[in-house]
């Protein structure tokens, strides 16, 4: 069946328009961040930055406590992901490889936990943390972020563990390994890609989290990058150059991770979530 010229043309034209629509906000963020201020506040937009400048980045990172925010964000995110991985790996192994009563109940429980409405529970979390005198501390953030990503991590890892052929494990045990040795020496290395992509999604979630840190940590020393970014316009008035530089700095690590690992991560996501 031959398609008319129009029939061949319109999908491509639509695709180009859509591509521009989806990419433009991201492009405009970087373009604004790199343009001199005169080009940003011009009556007619300067579509392509010609004289590239880094002054906005200097201003954005020159804010008080900038490096504190960076290190806070990194500490909280990395610790939350690491704890979640260790805890989830144990649980995922049990769910994928062992038969026991209530297994189905656990899986359903984690599926429900994955949908927890965290945004709505911040008042209760605030009270709990306050009663423990832990406001303005990184510890509550770390453990709650860990919990936010834990159910997803367990369910996804369950899929990855189940995908490792049982025979490999049995072969190792025939060769004299105990079950935990077989796990450490045979399964764990094979799980590396799975651990990688699962932790990526956890990393993105924790890195982006905003409502909880907004309520819990009012002191600059304990705040994270999303707060720094959201408070930017108020603090800087209409300094869009610095604001966009800040957005770029915040987004770049995630964009890089995501674009490079999206394909594998998504296939892992569906493999883990759909079938166990």
């Amino acid at each position: 069946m031959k398609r008319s010229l129009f029939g061949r043309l319109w999908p491509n034209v639509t695709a180009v328009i859509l591509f521009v629509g989806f990419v433009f906000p991201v492009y405009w963020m970087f373009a604004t961040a790199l343009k001199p201020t005169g080009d940003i506040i011009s009556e007619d937009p300067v579509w392509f930055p010609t004289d590239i400048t880094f002054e906005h980045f200097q201003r954005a990172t020159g804010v008080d406590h900038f490096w504190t925010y960076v290190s806070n964000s990194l500490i909280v995110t990395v610790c939350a992901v690491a704890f979640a991985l260790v805890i989830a790996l144990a649980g995922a192994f049990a769910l994928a490889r062992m038969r026991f009563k209530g297994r189905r109940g656990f899986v359903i429980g984690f599926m429900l936990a994955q949908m927890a409405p965290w945004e709505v529970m911040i008042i209760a979390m605030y009270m709990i943390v306050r009663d423990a005198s832990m406001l303005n501390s990184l510890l509550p953030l770390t453990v709650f972020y860990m919990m936010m990503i834990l159910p997803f991590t367990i369910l996804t890892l369950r899929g990855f563990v189940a995908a490792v052929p049982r025979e490999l494990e049995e072969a190792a045990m025939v060769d004299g390994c105990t079950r935990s040795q077989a796990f450490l020496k045979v399964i764990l290395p094979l799980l590396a890609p799975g651990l990688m992509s699962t932790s990526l999604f956890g990393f993105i979630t924790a890195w982006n989290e905003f409502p909880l840190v907004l309520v819990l940590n009012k002191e600059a020393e304990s705040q994270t990058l999303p707060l720094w970014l959201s408070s930017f316009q108020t603090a800087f008035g209409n300094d869009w150059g610095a604001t966009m530089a800040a957005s770029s700095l915040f987004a770049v690590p995630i964009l890089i991770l995501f674009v490079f690992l999206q394909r594998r991560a998504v296939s892992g996501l569906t493999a883990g979530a759909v079938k166990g």
Partner: protein
Amino acid sequence: MTVQTERPPSGPVDVAKTTPGRSGGGRPATGKRPGALVPYLLLLPACAATVLLLGWPLLKDVLLSFQNLNMAQLIQHVTEWNGVENYRQVLTGEDFWRVTLRSILFTAVNVVLIMVAGTLIGLLLARLGKRMRITLMMGLVLAWAMPVVAASTVYQWLFAQRFGVVNWVLDKLGWHSMADYSWTSSQMSTFFVVTLLIVWMSIPFVAINLYAATTTIPSELYEAASLDGAGVWKSFTTVTMPFLRPFLYATTFLEVIWVFKAFVQVFTINGGGPDRLTEILPVYAYIEGVGNQHYGMGAAIAVLTILILLGLTAYYLRIVLKQEEDEL
């Protein structure tokens, strides 16, 4: 393997809880094999974390919703129970119902836009040539990966009153009254920006996964359909749609949850303003509870919000749970 002498970690209570509908209840076979406890021990940390860090805040939320807890009580650390007073106030007030209706409409509009546009773009991806498809996919992935707070900052800049590129384009297109338009000055225009932001961020997930789903449709089905004389539309409705239906249900359900809780987008774009006119339920709970320091009221609103969300998704939740039970 070490033999565990302690009591089963997920004791009878947990087991009874997690095996609903099983007659005779299951006590783990403690005496039979030492290994029988291992799965429970492996799951213990995850379950403990869930109970402590998710179960406890949920319970705390319910407890708080029955307390008179304002600034004074907060500072003095006193607990004043006041029964269902918070609920009475919330449910008899006009605000709550207005915000609820607004939230549901907001969710409906967003989810419909996301699903329709996402599906169309997904089908377009399937039709494109390889190079064009990869290009569009890269664009979608970029939008998908953008962190929420960064994206909402960028949208504020795109829609800025002065020097914002959207106002410039509208002006050049001949709509001159938009040249200095303040998008955050009215309810509908604020919702427009928030909706555009949410739809822009959410379409890639639907489109890319839908495209992935279409690649699993066996081409024999299309051949059979065309042998039977089915045209493009007919083969779409008889082959493509039935194949994609479970996927579409699942995605719609996820999008309802995500959009309904879209706290960050609404809050960062305009803080629920102007005049609290764009508050959706999670934002309303936050502003009443934390902002106006009526913590008990806020908690009651939060509990009601969770119930409404459960109500909205109950139908699908039942199907999923049943399916999962059958599969396991």
